[in-house]
């Protein structure tokens, strides 16, 4: 039986792997998790850590880096570091919530599609293809223009846009796992189809999904900041990385730190998830890349 052989190979592959690659993967995952811890702390306790009120203006505009303002002040005298710390909160909140929604939707749709097959599969996949065909920004601009630039709309748009990718990553392995022997064994024992799908198929397709989720988080950071940069993000005066960049751009030559600060924050955040995805991929041995 072909399916069964594949089952063996998958479990044994991890132990046959070169130990060096495994160590690198473990280091990568550790670094990724540490970076993510920094992000989570900033997102949760931002206002408490920030040295100043991020929306309080002062006469000292575009002040260079001083001991009082490590990254200087922006065009209306707000502390850039404080805005960076508090601004991470909105960006990360949108990112995490949106990806959580698309992960949930992707798991449900991908599992239903792959497991049931036939007409259900065809219907779900065609609808997702349509969504997939939309450029992210076009759809986001359309939704935000139509429904208003609220936090909820932004989250929903991003969630919808990334659902097809995750659904596909779930569906693929489900197609193969559902033919494995232990699934037939479960059916012959008399277990219901829903339980089989959730308990006997889903846990075995989780590794590639974890990797893809991590990559999606990195992409979403970019998408959220880009939309905010274009003015489609959460409304001012609350800070976020995208709109900070947009405001600071015109004074780039006078106060370069106001641009470099948010840029580095964005790079750091997306790098976190890319490092994590790479580490997870090697650690969980997802050979499809």
């Amino acid at each position, binding site marked *: 039986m072909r399916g069964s052989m594949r089952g063996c190979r998958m479990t044994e592959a991890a132990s046959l792997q070169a130990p060096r690659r495994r160590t690198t993967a473990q280091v990568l995952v550790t670094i990724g998790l540490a970076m993510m811890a920094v992000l989570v702390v900033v997102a949760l306790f931002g206002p408490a850590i920030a040295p100043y009120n991020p929306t309080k203006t002062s006469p000292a505009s575009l002040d260079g880096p001083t001991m009082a303002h490590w990254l200087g002040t922006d065009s209306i005298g707000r502390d850039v570091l404080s805005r960076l710390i508090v601004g991470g909160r909105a960006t990360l909140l949108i990112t995490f919530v949106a990806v959580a929604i698309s992960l949930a939707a992707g798991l449900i749709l991908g599992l239903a599609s792959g497991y049931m097959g036939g007409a259900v599969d065809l219907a779900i996949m065609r609808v997702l293809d349509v969504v997939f065909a939309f450029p992210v920004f076009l759809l986001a601009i359309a939704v935000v223009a139509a429904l208003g630039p609220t936090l909820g709309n932004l989250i929903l748009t991003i969630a919808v846009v990334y659902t097809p990718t995750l659904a596909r990553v779930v569906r693929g392995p489900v197609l193969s796992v559902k033919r494995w022997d232990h699934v*037939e064994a479960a059916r012959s*024992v*008399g277990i219901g189809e829903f339980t089989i799908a959730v308990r006997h198929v889903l846990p075995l397709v989780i590794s590639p999904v974890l990797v893809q989720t991590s990559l999606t988080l990195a992409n979403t950071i970019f998408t959220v900041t880009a939309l905010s940069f274009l003015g489609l993000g959460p409304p001012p005066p609350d800070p976020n990385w995208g709109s900070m960049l947009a405001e600071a751009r015109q004074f780039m030559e006078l106060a370069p730190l106001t641009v470099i600060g948010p840029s580095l924050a964005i790079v750091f955040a997306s790098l976190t998830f890319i490092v994590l995805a790479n580490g997870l991929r090697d650690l969980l041995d997802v050979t499809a890349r």
Partner: protein
Amino acid sequence: MSEPLLRVRDLCVTFPARRGRPPVRAVEHLSFDIAAGQTLGLVGESGSGKTTAGRAILQLQPPSSGSVRLLGSEIVGMRSAPLRAMRRHMQLVQQNPYSSLHPRMTVARILAEPLAVHRSVPPRQIAERVAELMTLVGMDPSVVHRYPHEFSGGQRQRIVIARALAVNPDFVVCDEPVSALDVRTQAQIVELLQRLQERLRLSYLFIAHDLAIVRAVAHRVAVMYGGRIVELGDAAQVYQTPAHPYTRNLLDAVPLPDPARQRDRLAQPAEEPDFRGHAGRVGPCVFGKDHAATDTPAWHEVSPGHGVSCCFWPPENPARR
């Protein structure tokens, strides 16, 4: 006479045509009975439809026609809820113990699942019953919190058997239950299956390609070829007086334990007989009967309880009567 535990009549499985190829008739007009506490051995070469037959009997593969009656109820075409309840009486032991256990579930959970689904014991007694099952298949109940990969092939097959027996079935399809194991373990598992049969009065459909093992376990033997049963009889009848040329061919393929004689036999290879399908042909069959004209099944009793099909009969090999 009361109805046997399992009665299979004219079971057919046809896989639909694909890309211009004709439909595949995997199983055709399978008919046999299995009495309580008895084993029917099903032998045949790869691709003869043995596994499909087993899956169709358990309704894991919907049959295209025919009837399967278990404990007096027709299970072909049964709705899914009553069928799932019916699965309490019929279980499956698969070939490959390395793939038939959920790799991320502990043995305790694997064995508890069927108990919970069929509510065969109250939730509080599940742990107790799991331990009992482990003892039943000759394993130490203290290892139930381990995962399948921590066990050897033979141990895993014991766990698979324990799972099948969890709900006290009456009938178990053993689909090549030992062919993935090494020879010594094979003997242990076969012995276990026989012991369990005596103790629990189980009926087996024992699918295998190893004729020696089937001879050891089966009361009756069915020989399959090309999706049909070509010979069916008591084990002794089939092994000692094989009536169908295919059965003779299959028995001749068993290597002789004497190297010198085996070498002699291989030196002059027997000509491969031509077992062509003879279904639906007109005119008299090898036994001199015209089934198409008289509308009778292509089946001939050579002695009481020992029948043979006139299909797949090479033309140059007339029936020995």
